[in-house]
């Protein structure tokens, strides 16, 4: 589940990045929210799962 949150969060913040930088008006504002949400979700996920964390 945490792997899904971590990687899914990256996808969400990626979408938000382009929305906020390339969009205008409401789209850009929504993009800002999506970007911040994606950062939060991926941080939550990576706190409990990290790639190649198995020895």
């Amino acid at each position, binding site marked *: 589940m945490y792997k899904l949150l971590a990687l899914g969060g990256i996808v969400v*913040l990626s979408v938000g*990045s382009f929305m906020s*930088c390339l969009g205008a008006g409401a789209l850009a504002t929504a993009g800002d929210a999506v970007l911040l949400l994606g950062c939060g979700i991926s941080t939550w996920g990576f706190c409990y799962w990290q790639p190649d964390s198995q020895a």
Partner: protein
Amino acid sequence: MSDYERTAVPRDARRGFWQITSVWVGYVFILVSMMAGAGMAAGMSLETLFWAILVGNLFLTVVSSLMSIIAYKTGYTFALICRFSFGSLGAKIPAIMYAFIQLGWYVIQAALFGHLIAVYFELSPFFEALAMIASCLFMGLFALKGMRWMSVVGLVSIPTMIMLCLATAMRAVQDGGGWAAVAAFSGEETMDFMTAVGLVLGTWIFGASTTVADFNRFARSSKHVVAGCATGLLIVNSFIIGVGAIVGAASQQWDLVEILFGLGLVIPAFVLLTTNLWTTNSANLYSVGLTLSSVFPKTSRQTIMIGIMILASVLSLFKPYEIGAVFAMLKGLSIIVPPLTGIVLIDFYFLWNRQYPGHIENLSFKTVNPYAILAWLAGIGVAISFDIGFASLNAMAGAAFIYALIMKATHLQMLNTDNEHLAGHQKTQEA
């Protein structure tokens, strides 16, 4: 909480490729590199600049890989590695210099972030000072916890920064009249190719030859080490300087803070600058903590780092983020640090035959190796005296050559007689 600051990292504590690389790439992904790219774009054509970026980062990748392999094989921090060439007390000299420079970078970047907050919220000088102080304190929090927490920061920040850089560049090009207009931009031709390569080298010669060891000592294989170095420097650093150059060419400005605000990208600006400054500064402070732990063995790493954070808060009030101070430091580092790296590399790969003894906590070293210090100064002298090629390379090669020559001629042993059985590896013992 120990992060193996005074011993080798044991095999069962080593970490995977992405965990190490996320910290290293996060470290490399830095606002100052973008500013350097924007500043260089104002002084030369984009085509020349991109070649300078590629050549400079290729050289940095080679240096960082060689240093990282030493750290991976031994599990030692950079400060501990220096003992084999500089001696137990002599190693404190580069360590203190190293910590001083890292502190300088930490202060510049934290102050820059505070400045950003002050510009956007139109704060008075008093509140700008408070913002800079708060930046210095908050940016060090993850470094206090160690590598695992820094990995979290890196794993989140890197994709965020990449996406925001791409989106920012696309927006800047779009607003600047399209790619054809940006590609046709040419700076005032005030900077030549060699100077530009020297500046690229200066952006990371320090970290590529010193700090990289503090992260890659946790690596599990030499392949991971080399791949990580290439990812951080050849790919990411080239990318970040290039993005800075494109945005600078599109906007004809060097101040990235003003560029981002001018584009109306407020939230993305804050997210981008927070992530890249936070990751790099965490790594800076972490490395300072490790280094000064070897200089002051009776003080814990956490206590040292808290002290540094407080000191940095005071120094940030002098506003070091102005471009003049940044470029002056970059140019200075390109001459002072490489001789040190040259000495360490020749010592390990040539004089010690690629194998330092283990269990450094049980080894007894000579106090000072005056020949290492002499070679270091000579390397700086070579860089200043020879106006051919790249000053960094000249300094590194000059110091390495002089050091090897003197050590072979004098047959100096760096381990004391009670560790004589370990000194057999050192080639200076051969007739």
